[in-house]
């Protein structure tokens, strides 16, 4: 497994321009949206906080995570399947789960790197806070990321080829961004929509992140929804996975 991790990381770094570009958007949005004066005023919708304090970085972390989960991961796996990389590997004694595990771990690191870049940029440019309940934040981030990456693997498994994987990924990504409140803040969503958001994994993910920003531990219900999502998606990913 160590060797797979090493080689796969090297392969990823050989495409460093592409991976940096994928993380550039969330970081640039932090800087760009941070220049809008209204977003820098204290907002009663967020309990008097400024939008840029926790809402903006949390959403940009989600954007980075969704990009990794629904663009990069399914793309790599579907390409490997299409080219027969997985088929080649299936003729050796190595257990397939090693490759899957290595890919998940690398994607997680990649998403974490994106999150760190967002937090750092927001702190540097906008003076946004760093999550006050830092361990809680890490817990929420890891749990939410694992759930989203598992969903990304489900997409990788159902995509017939490398071309359709990003298409399906994007089709899943945008509704999730909407449910997370990226365009319409959750606070002003109609009740039905907010309920949908509450069960969408990304809704609790955003809320729990904001809680940890404010210094609170994440709510159990938020953690429960994310855990359920992780269990469901990873079971599906394992069930649907195929080598060719």
């Amino acid at each position, binding site marked *: 497994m160590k060797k797979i991790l090493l*080689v796969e990381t090297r392969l990823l770094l050989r495409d460093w321009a592409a991976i940096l570009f994928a993380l550039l958007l969330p970081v640039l949005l932090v800087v760009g949206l941070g220049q809008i004066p209204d977003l820098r005023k204290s907002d009663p919708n967020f309990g008097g906080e400024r939008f840029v304090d926790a809402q903006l970085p949390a959403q940009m972390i989600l954007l980075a995570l969704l990009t990794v989960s629904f663009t990069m991961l399914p793309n790599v796996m579907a390409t490997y399947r299409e*080219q*027969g*990389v997985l*088929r*080649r590997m299936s*003729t*050796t*004694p190595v257990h397939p789960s090693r490759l899957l595990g290595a890919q998940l771990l690398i994607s997680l690191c990649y998403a974490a790197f994106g999150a760190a870049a967002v937090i750092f940029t927001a702190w540097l440019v906008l003076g946004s806070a760093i999550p006050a309940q830092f361990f809680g934040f890490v817990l929420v981030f890891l749990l939410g990321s694992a759930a989203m990456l598992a969903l990304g693997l489900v997409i990788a498994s159902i995509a017939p080829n490398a071309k359709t994987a990003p298409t399906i990924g994007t089709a899943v990504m945008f509704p999730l961004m909407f449910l997370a409140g990226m365009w319409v803040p959750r606070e002003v969503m109609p009740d039905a929509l907010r309920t949908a958001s509450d069960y969408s994994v990304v809704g609790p993910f955003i809320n729990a992140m904001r809680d940890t920003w404010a210094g609170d531990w994440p709510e159990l219900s938020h953690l429960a929804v994310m855990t359920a999502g992780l269990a469901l998606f990873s079971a599906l990913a394992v069930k649907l996975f195929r080598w060719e």
Partner: protein
Amino acid sequence: MNVIEVENLHKRYKDQVAVDDVSFEVRAGEIFGILGPNGSGKTTTVECVSGLRIPDRGVIRVAGIDPVRERDALRRVLGVQLQSATLPEKMKVGEALDLYASFYPEPADWRELLERVGLGAKRDSMVGKISGGQRQRLSVALALVGKPRITVLDELTTGLDPQARRDTWELVEQVRDSGVTVVLVTHFMEEAQRLCDRMALIDTGRIVATDTPAGLIERVGGGKRMRFRPSAPVDDAVLLALPEVTGVTRDGGQVVVTGTGDLAVAVTLALTGLKIVPGDLHVEETTLDDAFVALTGRKSA
């Protein structure tokens, strides 16, 4: 000793029968060819042997191992080079071997293996940047990195230029000489004739014949034919008196002699004794290609 035994193998996809009652044995230390046109069921057969597909019926044993039930054990004795399998383009040649070596409990020394297949200088080249012949060599090295007793090489030389093809053939012979049993899947008659100790001729999912290349040619008559322009008139009776000669005909100024065994040598010696020189000498032998056409009743690829 047989290292592979296949008995009454059947496999169908949806409404199409791919492999229909195929049986054969592969002996230790030989290059065994599975020869047939595209779509004849060759690849499906070796995929079943390699445990990549589950047969509908039939018994397969590879070094005594059941490929379906004992996949892990099979992976350790069988190295597979697949037709439709590649590596990531940006992976380096050395990395690929190092990685695949790490999948096996007791791998070969991959650096030495790299030298053996003639890719020592390409260690730091990316897989996407090397030539087709080099990629096939790498593929063979990957199949050998687990120190298998048996290796399956599927359509190894398809798409290679003649020189690369010859180099690859040499490599396959080296592999056999190092003690690894080779199962070679191919649709090139020339390749099979050159490399295989024995082979199974397969057509539309069925085995037509299993034999040595010479044996297969023998089955369809195995005749030889030579034609030449004699420097002086030669009597048919002189030639017909030779045990190797079965017939003599004339074609314009040319003499056409048919026969068996060392026909050309016998006839040339007899003519030399009469101080006659056979000009424009052509010797034609029945090839595996002819045998294939005769045995299946259709043209080969």
